[in-house]
């Protein structure tokens, strides 16, 4: 019997990352723009999805994968608001979605009918940050009521996200939200992500946000056409 010290160097979450890559390939091949919606509880994730669908109108068919610890109340809400399809994932206490859960949900989602899929993660600004699901866009949704120091307290999600949607902008005066502080902190972490200021309650900013989404979806559709021309048998 002998003791050996063996060098390995392996990413601990490689298994999740590989599953996420497979999901991303499925979304892209189907011409679907997938967004991983990450926010604290109460920031307005479901409201954002509902109001975005209304702002998109007939420009995009939206599907939703709802991640919750328990229950299906949000799935019922988005279907009532006009989602073309929705699938519920109950994590049973897990604080974040993982790529394997989304992979199973994709089998139940009618991908042929959809243009944009929102994956509503569990309400949590920490854990979901570290698990890729296969989205092309990681969306960080803070709200003014949570305070302007959110990027200081939870830097990682602001650092790795592709777009920031700041909700409850109608409350900005009431909650003493310091816009300059917020933008400075965000830009130190992430110089590139576009920031949309919106209010799901008043509808402010939703048209610009929906327009941006439509453009991103057109890019994915173009990528899907190129892919399908290269290897038509994959479709």
């Amino acid at each position: 019997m002998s003791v050996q010290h063996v060098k390995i160097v392996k990413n601990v979450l490689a298994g999740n990352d590989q599953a996420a890559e497979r999901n991303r390939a499925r979304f892209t091949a189907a011409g679907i723009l997938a967004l991983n919606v990450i926010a604290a509880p109460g920031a307005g994730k479901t409201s954002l999805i509902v109001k975005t669908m209304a702002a998109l109108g007939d420009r995009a068919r939206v599907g939703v994968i709802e991640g919750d610890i328990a229950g299906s109340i949000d799935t019922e809400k988005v279907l009532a608001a006009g989602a073309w399809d929705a699938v519920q994932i109950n994590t049973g206490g897990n604080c974040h979605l993982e790529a394997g859960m989304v992979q199973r949900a994709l089998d139940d989602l009618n991908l042929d009918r959809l243009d944009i899929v929102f994956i509503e993660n569990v309400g949590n600004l920490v854990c979901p940050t570290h698990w890729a699901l296969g989205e092309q866009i990681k969306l960080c949704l803070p709200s003014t009521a949570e305070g302007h120091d959110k990027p200081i307290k939870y830097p990682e999600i602001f650092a790795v996200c592709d777009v920031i949607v700041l909700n409850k902008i109608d409350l900005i005066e009431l909650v003493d939200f310091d816009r300059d502080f917020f933008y400075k902190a965000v830009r130190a972490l992430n110089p590139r992500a576009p920031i949309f200021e919106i209010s799901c309650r008043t509808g402010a900013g939703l048209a610009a946000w929906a327009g941006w989404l439509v453009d991103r979806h057109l890019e994915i559709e173009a990528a899907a056409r190129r892919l399908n021309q290269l290897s038509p048998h994959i479709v």
Partner: protein
Amino acid sequence: MHELSIASYLLDSVEDQARQLGAQRVLAINLVAGERAGIVDEALQFSFDLLTAETLAEGARINVRRTFMCFHCAPCDCEYSPKVGDFNCPNCGAVGQLTADGTELLIESIEIET
């Protein structure tokens, strides 16, 4: 609180490697966990111990080497660790840019009994 999920991926990887190496037992796992990976060491060891009963990794110790979040200040051309509650350069007050440091979550090596 995502340590239980991470422990489960960690165990899969370590068991796989240990079997390939013909190990009888895994004594220790040496991890590099960046500050930005959000791992609480005690929670990771606790979760890992819950999962490893009757596996090759039962009783294995997880040693964590921490790496840290870092910013670069262009005007000063220096790297700095942020102060609590402030990401700006401590020398000149400019908004710095986050570097890639402190994001790792890697198994660096394992100690096994063969």
